[in-house]
């Protein structure tokens, strides 16, 4: 069940807001304190990638983030509307043997997803012509914490 949904325009300044929100909800959901930095960074990476993609392809379209507390997991889904040309790529085994030799665009996009894959407990990346959807989750206290 989605507990919080946020849409924001593709502006770099809003990425910080999104990651602060995600961290606050993760804490409230009962994600361990030691994992909160990972949540903050992974959500920031997903939102940054989406903002960059929207600024290239569809700057007027909003980016959507869903933060869910379900079955003892804290789940975050970041959805963008920019057509992805990265379909079929294996995101679980990204390597950067020659980061200095890579094109900046490839480097940035690949780095962001590599960081997410390295940080989140569970990640799925769904690229398509209608946009990319990144789902990531971390263990949380069953039922979450009291909202007090």
């Amino acid at each position: 069940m989605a507990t919080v949904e946020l849409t924001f325009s593709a502006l770099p300044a809003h990425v910080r807001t999104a990651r602060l929100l995600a961290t606050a909800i993760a804490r409230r959901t009962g994600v361990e304190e030691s994992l909160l930095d990972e949540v903050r960074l992974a959500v920031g990476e997903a939102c940054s990638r989406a903002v960059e993609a929207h600024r290239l392809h569809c700057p007027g379209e909003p980016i959507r983030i869903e933060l869910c507390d379900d079955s003892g997991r804290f789940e975050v889904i970041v959805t963008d509307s920019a057509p992805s040309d990265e379909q079929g790529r294996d995101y679980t085994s990204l390597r950067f043997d020659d980061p200095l030799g890579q094109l900046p665009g490839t480097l940035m996009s690949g780095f962001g997803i590599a960081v997410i894959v390295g940080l989140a407990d569970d990640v799925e990346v769904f690229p398509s012509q209608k946009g990319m959807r990144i789902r990531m989750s971390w263990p949380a206290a069953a039922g979450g914490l009291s909202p007090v």
Partner: protein
Amino acid sequence: MDLKLDHHSEDSLTIVEVEGEIDVYTAPRLRELLIDLVNKGNFHLLVNMEKVDFLDSTGLGVLVGGLKRVRAHDGSLELVCTQERILKIFRITGLTKVFGIYASVDEAKEAHGRDK
């Protein structure tokens, strides 16, 4: 926290002090500073990241871009960082093999002196 940048030179080494968050919003300012320093002939840069609270892949891209620029002039770009949460990002992306990463400015200066 916003990004604060400062820099000063010690012999042939230019030390860049970075404080705050390096992300998609603030990274362009660091990129501009590194480009400006290289354009002014500063080819040996040491970026002190001990006061950096947050670093994402945009920031990594800026540092890699800076490294490429100084290497084009046979220069160097090295880092000072002991924070595990920042070092983890370098490890995940394999960039620990690309950057010299030191525990303190003094240690980096000493290594730079040896390499001269």
